[in-house]
């Protein structure tokens, strides 16, 4: 099947839809630019469409890294190794060379210019073309999207990581930048910056002709993530660390791991290394058996984060709540964290919130843990991203 002249714009729109589905911000303007780029390139240089479109559609390093796979998947699905063909589905036949040629012929044949043509129904196509793989449509009663979202995070696959990072970024966006307390009192939001005004007045012989105003100060909450890496959390710890890493990258969170003691692993998570788990294992190698959450939390607020636990701090504990310390200790230590103004959220892999003795003592003190949330699948993380945290 060859691409007819009427189809190039639809094919580009389908490609843009695929890019959007994977988190790239590709709107009408980008699609118009893609068409213009394809038209600007000489026909014999059609292979450079890849580089040209990449420059247009990608807006950051993450998009850049994802591009090659998405481009291949859409335009050269036959080249992808390991992709499975779903029964009853026809493999799309898209030739980039033909597409560029069709666009050029369309222009030469006096069809409407690309700017107008791209704003037609083809670019407003809400979804992928019918033969596009990867969309969430049901086949024979089963939806592949559902399966991906609901799969337990203990069975995570490396390809889930990109989605996981995107969701973590969405959560980080919701946590991003609130007005500081001092600015809450100022209704107008204008304050004179005396130092900079005086400095600027030197240029005008000491006359403060150009007053300098302070911009309202917005700060993002300081996020601390405590990840339980004890035996009972073995199956989830690795992915929880991946989630924590996404927050380190997205909003400079500080990450600690604990089972019988607490250790900070933020520097280890900064570099994208396959050996993250090995490093964390090395850090926690000397720890004894069991889980001592209360001791770890005490160490956390008294030593590691003493100066940073303020009203704007958020503490997320990723644990199943089984504590080998005395049951009331955990509530006491969490109360000390809460006393500094930090807000605590507890994420658990189980269906119900943890109900150990220690957690029961915590729950008896109202408002100590602000919220409990299940974190066992990408769907859970997605729902977190939708809620205000």
């Amino acid at each position, binding site marked *: 099947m060859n691409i007819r002249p009427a189809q190039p714009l639809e094919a580009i729109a389908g490609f843009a839809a695929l890019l959007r589905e994977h988190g790239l911000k590709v709107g009408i*303007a980008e699609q118009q*630019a893609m068409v213009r780029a394809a038209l600007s390139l*000489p026909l014999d*240089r059609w292979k450079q469409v890849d580089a040209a479109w*990449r*420059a247009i559609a990608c*807006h950051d390093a993450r998009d850049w890294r994802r591009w090659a796979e998405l481009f291949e998947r859409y335009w050269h699905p036959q080249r992808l190794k390991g992709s499975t063909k779903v029964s009853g589905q026809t493999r799309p036949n898209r030739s980039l060379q033909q597409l560029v040629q069709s666009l050029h012929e369309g222009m030469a044949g006096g069809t409407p210019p690309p700017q107008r043509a791209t704003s037609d129904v083809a670019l407003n196509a809400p979804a992928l073309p019918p033969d596009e793989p990867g969309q969430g449509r049901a086949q024979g009663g089963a939806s592949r999207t559902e399966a991906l979202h609901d799969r337990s995070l203990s069975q995570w696959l490396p390809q889930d990581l990109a989605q996981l990072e995107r969701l973590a970024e969405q959560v980080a966006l919701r946590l991003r930048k609130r007005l500081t307390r001092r600015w809450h009192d100022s209704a107008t939001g204008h304050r004179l910056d005396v130092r900079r005004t005086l400095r600027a007045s030197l*240029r005008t*012989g000491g006359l403060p002709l150009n007053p300098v105003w302070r911009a309202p100060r917005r700060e993002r909450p300081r996020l601390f993530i405590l990840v339980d890496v004890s035996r009972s959390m073995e199956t989830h710890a690795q992915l929880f660390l991946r989630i924590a890493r996404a927050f380190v990258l997205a909003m400079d969170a500080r990450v600690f791991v604990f089972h019988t003691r607490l250790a900070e692993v933020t520097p280890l998570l900064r*570099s994208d290394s396959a050996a993250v788990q090995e490093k964390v294992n090395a850090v926690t190698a000397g720890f004894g058996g069991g889980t001592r959450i209360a001791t770890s939390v005490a160490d956390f607020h008294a030593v590691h984060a003493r100066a940073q636990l303020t009203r704007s701090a958020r503490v997320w504990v990723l644990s199943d709540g089984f504590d080998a310390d005395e049951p009331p200790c955990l509530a006491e230590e969490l109360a000390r964290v809460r006393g500094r103004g930090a807000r605590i959220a507890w994420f658990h892999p189980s269906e119900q919130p943890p109900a150990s003795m220690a957690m029961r003592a915590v729950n008896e003190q109202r408002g100590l843990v602000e919220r409990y949330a299940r974190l066992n699948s990408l769907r859970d993380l997605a729902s977190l991203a939708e809620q205000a945290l």
Partner: protein
Amino acid sequence: MTDADLRVSLQRVGHLADEALATTLWLAGELQRPLLVEGDAGVGKTALAVALAQARGQRLVRLQCHEGLDLSQAAYEWNYGKQLLAIRLHETQPGERVREADLFARDYLLERRLLQAISSDAPCVLLIDEIDRADEAFEAFLLEVLADYQITVPELGTVTARHVPQVVLTSNGTRELSDALRRRCLYHYLDHPTLAREIAIVRATLPQAEGQLVEQAVAFVQKLRRDDLSKKPGIAETLDWVRALHRLDFKALPDDPLALVPTLACLLKTREDRFQMGEDRIRQLMEGRRSVGVAEKAPQQI
């Protein structure tokens, strides 16, 4: 000029760009869109803009961003001293009264980098270096400049570009840039060069260095980058290192790793990295260079 021509021009001025980068640079000119270049420090983002200006034979206007950069430092400023002087001069002449329009004329305007690029008589390349270091307020101001290539001076009116400058923005990712700015730009992520490209770059820049030394040194750096370093050496560091080795009269990498240790200051810029790169690790990396093919084992000591 096609993208292939631009690539040749870049090569002529000593910048070896790959095909994709040349296409992106060419496209930025065709679509008259700014180009945002990101990448690790030392991969050649700034050098790219400099080379582009040389390749096109155009003037390079460079705006170095920093915290607190404002309109008066980046775009324009009224020359208050000159204005005050003009007022005093008029006061000394009886009967003459200075008019406001006279004082806010082009003569009293100090053009900073952005306005210089916009009002330039000839096409130029505008490099906005390390945009992530500037404040968000400046980024917002930049949106107007990059969208319409014009700057509004309230007292004078709007200055529109006679020739749309080719804008190159660089960022090291110390701060997240706004979506609005990103979407106005074409984007290119400049990665560390491949082995062959890096050898070609070093040879082009340091033709006096021995070929064997260049190949071995670049292979060593490539392996070093795969290590878990907190600051990976860029192409600038490779050039520094090869230059240092050449000055020390090395024709090839020495067999003794201890001889290399003092020169590693050119490559490793943090305490942890220096600590991590002990004699044994250097030996491992160097022994790797002697292997031919992936199947051959490192020489074993008897």
